[in-house]
Each structure stands twice: as structure tokens, then as C-alpha cells.
């Protein structure tokens, strides 16, 4: 069971973990391990509109600042993710589950739909992020490869994380 104030703590932990990964763990340049978008993916179902946009914007800025990335890149991609998030929740969750569950999870949507939900959101996020990151240097085929690889990897981690943490009865 996850409570609202716990969610904030969880978000801070994820941001810090992302900062550690960005600063101290060396990955292959084609592998994008992005945990901060997961916070937006797992935010309560009812949240949408301007609060979500602001949350995405500041979360992205903090993430870029702590990760020594190009300022604005994560924020730009996260805001597009937020635009897609609520329509996806509405499409993948029935009315009863929306009333019963606070957070999107394998339980509220069903395992397959939740996996689809994460895959689509990460794909949207990485389309923007990788495009910005590869500006003018990388051929389109490699950009597509990075997006697909990143989507599968991050959605897999996200699914596991959500399955472990978000356990509403």
C-alpha cells in the first residue's frame, strides 16, 4: 500500500538515484536509462492539466541539473509525456478501477495494459529526448534504435518497479 506522502519520498529517491546513475555509472552512449519519467507515469490517476505540466517541467529541470545534462531537455520531453498520459489512463483503465485505485499500476489496469501504458509513455518521452540528444550527429536509423532499445529497457524497469512498490488493495 502506498500513501500520498510516501509517493513524494519515492519521487525524491528516484530523482537522486537518477542523479547517481548519470554522474557515477558509465553506460554505453546508446543506452538511455531514465527513471525520472517513471515518477510522472506513476502519479495519481486524477492528476492532469496544468499541475501535471508544472510538475513535469520542474522535475525535468531538476533531473537535468543534478545529472549535469543539457538544461531543458528532460523537461521538454516530460511535458509531452504528460500530454499523452491522461488520455492513455482513460483508455486503459475502466471506470470502476479509476474510482477504486489511486495510482496507475498492473493491478488497476491489468498487467498487459499497464505494460502497454509504460511502453507508449516511454516511447513518447524518448522520441523527444533522444532526438534532442542526438541533434545533428547521429543518423536516423541509430536514433530509432536508441529509442526502441531505451523504451524496452525503461518500460521493463518501470513495470518491475511499479509491481514492487505500488500495491493497492
Amino acid at each position: 500500500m502506498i500513501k500520498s506522502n510516501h509517493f513524494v519520498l519515492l519521487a525524491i529517491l528516484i530523482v537522486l538515484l537518477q542523479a547517481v546513475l548519470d554522474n557515477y555509472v558509465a553506460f554505453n552512449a546508446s543506452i538511455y536509462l531514465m527513471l525520472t519519467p517513471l515518477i510522472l507515469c506513476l502519479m495519481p490517476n486524477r492528476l492532469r492539466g496544468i499541475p501535471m505540466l508544472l510538475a513535469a517541467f520542474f522535475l525535468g529541470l531538476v533531473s537535468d541539473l543534478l545529472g549535469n545534462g543539457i538544461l531543458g531537455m528532460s523537461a521538454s520531453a516530460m511535458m509531452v509525456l504528460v500530454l499523452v498520459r491522461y488520455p492513455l489512463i482513460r483508455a486503459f483503465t475502466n471506470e470502476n478501477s479509476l474510482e477504486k485505485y489511486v495510482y496507475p499500476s498492473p493491478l488497476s489496469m491489468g498487467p498487459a495494459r499497464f505494460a502497454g501504458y509504460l511502453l507508449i509513455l516511454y516511447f513518447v518521452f524518448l522520441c523527444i529526448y533522444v532526438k534532442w540528444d542526438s541533434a545533428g550527429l547521429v543518423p536516423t536509423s541509430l536514433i530509432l534504435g536508441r529509442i526502441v532499445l531505451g523504451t524496452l529497457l525503461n518500460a521493463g524497469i518501470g513495470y518491475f518497479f511499479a509491481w514492487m512498490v505500488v500495491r493497492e488493495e
Partner: protein
Amino acid sequence: MGKNISFLRVLIIAITFLALEGVCVLLISRNSILQQTQLVLSLRQVQQIGWKRIAKRQYANQLETTNEMLVRENQRLLAQNQWLETLVNEQAYKDSSCFLPEPHRFQYIAAEVIRNETDRQHNVLFLNKGRADGIHPDMGVITTQGVVGFVNGVSEHFCQVISLLDIDRGITGTLTRTSTFGPIRWDGRRADRVVMEEIPIHTSFEAGDTVVTSGFSQLFPKGIPLGRVAEHELVDGVSYRLYIDLFENFRSLHFVYIVSNTQQAEIEGLLL
């Protein structure tokens, strides 16, 4: 009411999103030269689409002016051509000690067709030039593609032209291959074809031969192209009837030239 609020909410979200994305783009472009270059390139591409559209629109807007300019230029060139042709024709007499070049015989007044008919047996056109512009009846009307007709009635600012596509009127044409001339008239069937009659049976011609104005009438200069021989038939075993495909498309006439013969009165005075 509910719909309005919903629309307003969507509008505010959209504006917020665009504003925050704008801030992000600004931050990205300030912090990395690579992304800045990519951004500028993308913006240039969008700008180019806009520039192309503007250029296209400007070109379309200028078409009318360009067209009028071309008509004036054509008018000047026609007059110049006429003058040069006169000089060339007079070349043979140059040895004569009393050689004097023929003065400028034809002048051209550009006019715009304001009404045109091609579907009747007696077709007429109306032009936007009249008495005030020096137009009077029995002036020829041509284009660079052939003869259009001749002025019939004139008002202060407009004139009525009897079209070449009139079954009762005709002109004289010359086959360029043999310089054989014959009357040309319209048979009332096709707007793109006229008939040339009374071509002697011994005349040599082929399909595709060009027919031009003879210059015998005082209305048109000599040598204006009219059309090409398309078909022929033998008439009573003594002459040929040639079917001429006109160069000019009468259905798309827009600008024409009214021909003014400065010596018409003098020549007609001798004919009387």
C-alpha cells in the same frame, strides 16, 4: 456553458504547455551549440516553406503587371518587326539612286478582349479600346498567332470586332511554300479550323504547310501566320479546298492588337 468552460480549460493548458516548451527550447539552445544549430536549421526549414509560399503569391500577384508589360513590349516589337521587314523588302531597290524607304505603315494598339463568342455562325468580340484611343471601323485585329477579325462598330471606349469565325466574312491568305494565295473563310463548324478555297490544281502543297496573311487587304500586314494545312479536297476537279488548323485558340483570347494602317485612306483613294 459547459462546453465553453471545457474549451477554455483546454486553451489554458495548451498555452501553458507551449510557454513551458518555449522556455525549454530556449534553455536547450543557450546551453548547447549542437542543439542550437539543429534548432536553427529546423527553423530555417520552416521559414523556407513560408518564403516559398510568399514568393509564389508575390509571383501570382505580379502576373497581371508582367502580362501588361509583355503586351507593351510585344506591341513595340511588332512595330519594329514591321519596319525591319519593310527595309528588307526594299533592299532590292537599294541600287536605285532614288531609293527612299517606305514609311512606317502599320501601327499597333494593344487591347483587351472583354467579351468573346465562338459558338455562333456570326461571332463577335468586344475590346476595351474605342474612338478615344484612335479606333475606327475597318481596322484589323490580330495577335502574334494570327488574325482575329476586323473592327465593325466603335463607341467612345469600346469597339465591336467581327471575328474571323464569321461565315460571311473572310480574308486572303498565302501558302508560304508556293506563295499561292486564296480566300479564307470559316465554314461554321470548328472554332479551330478555317477553309482556304480556290487553290489551283497544279499547286504543290503538303499537310503542315504554313498559311500567312497575303497583305493584299489594307487591314492586316503581310506575313502574319494563320495556321497549318491539315486536310484538302478536290473541288469540281479544278481547284483544291484546304482545311487550315488555326494557330490562334479563339476560346482563350485575352490580349489582341488593333492594326492601324497609316496609309489606308491614301490607298483606298486610289482604288476608288
